[in-house]
């Protein structure tokens, strides 16, 4: 298990890379964007981007919003 900060919450995950993390959460990877330690993780790099202890991840998507 790797301890990371995921969307502001301390979490322990089994996933070894970003693609596995998204699958573990159960969301469609095409509908989200991922930031790791303040850097954007391109969709093409989900598998190649490892998850290391202490990483700070943000996983976001589009929601309704106006101004």
């Amino acid at each position, binding site marked *: 298990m790797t301890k990371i900060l995921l969307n502001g919450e301390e979490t322990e995950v089994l996933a070894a890379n970003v693609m596995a993390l998204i699958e573990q959460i159960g969301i469609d990877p095409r509908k989200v964007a991922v*930031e790791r330690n303040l850097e954007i993780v391109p969709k093409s790099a989900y598998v190649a981007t490892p998850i290391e202890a202490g990483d700070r991840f943000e996983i976001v998507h589009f929601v309704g919003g*106006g*101004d």
Partner: protein
Amino acid sequence: MTEPTAALSPDTWTVAGRTFSSRLIVGTGKYKDYAQNAAAARASGAEIVTVAVRRVNLTDPNQPMLMDYVKQDEFTYLPNTAGCFTGEDAVRTLRLAREAGGWNLVKLEVLSDPKTLYPDMEETLRSLKLLVKDGFDVMVYCSDDPVYAKKLEEAGACAIMPLGAPIGSGLGIQNRVTLRIIIENAKVPVLVDAGVGTASDAAVGMELGCDAILMNTAIAEAKDPIRMAVAMKHAVIAGREAYLAGRMAKKLYADPSSPLAGLI
């Protein structure tokens, strides 16, 4: 017989190389659910919808998603930075939006006071420069200050979006003079963003000569949002046509419409 001028060429507007026929942009917030939201957006005839970027709900990843209702093959998504109070937050949010959606047309808003939701113009200008350098096409929510509007344009904004009244207030267009000055001096599209409460407000905004209007609450918080969306569609068209037609001169006294000659 001459053809009506309206039939000669389609009345479109262009922002950052993208051309649209609808001059109404609608927000996707405050609706009962995404289904109602999508129905209202369709009824409004809008081609662009604003969207926000937020954290995925990790505890319930099966919640309904905006993308499943307000679909990207139907609407151009305009990601915004609503809720951002610093330039760094805004840039970070829009980089994520660009990655999620794969496009670079965005709406920048950097707010200051949570009570008025007035834009922090100093921080907005600074953020704009960061985003332009990063390759974004930035439509900028701003105050109705003609000096700042000019600065935004010079810094590379692809559209200027002054408020007509505070966000979500529904007060109607409170600043016709400053909006008109901004419109006359801008070389990029000017959109009235925020302040519209009902259809006549949208018509007033369009009659001032702005290129388009952005609204959310006026539709979402109407008792019948779908019907108000239809009203807004017509109001924007009516205001635009009136602007193009050129209104009559105002006079202090009456001027009869029937001829005085030939009276019995």
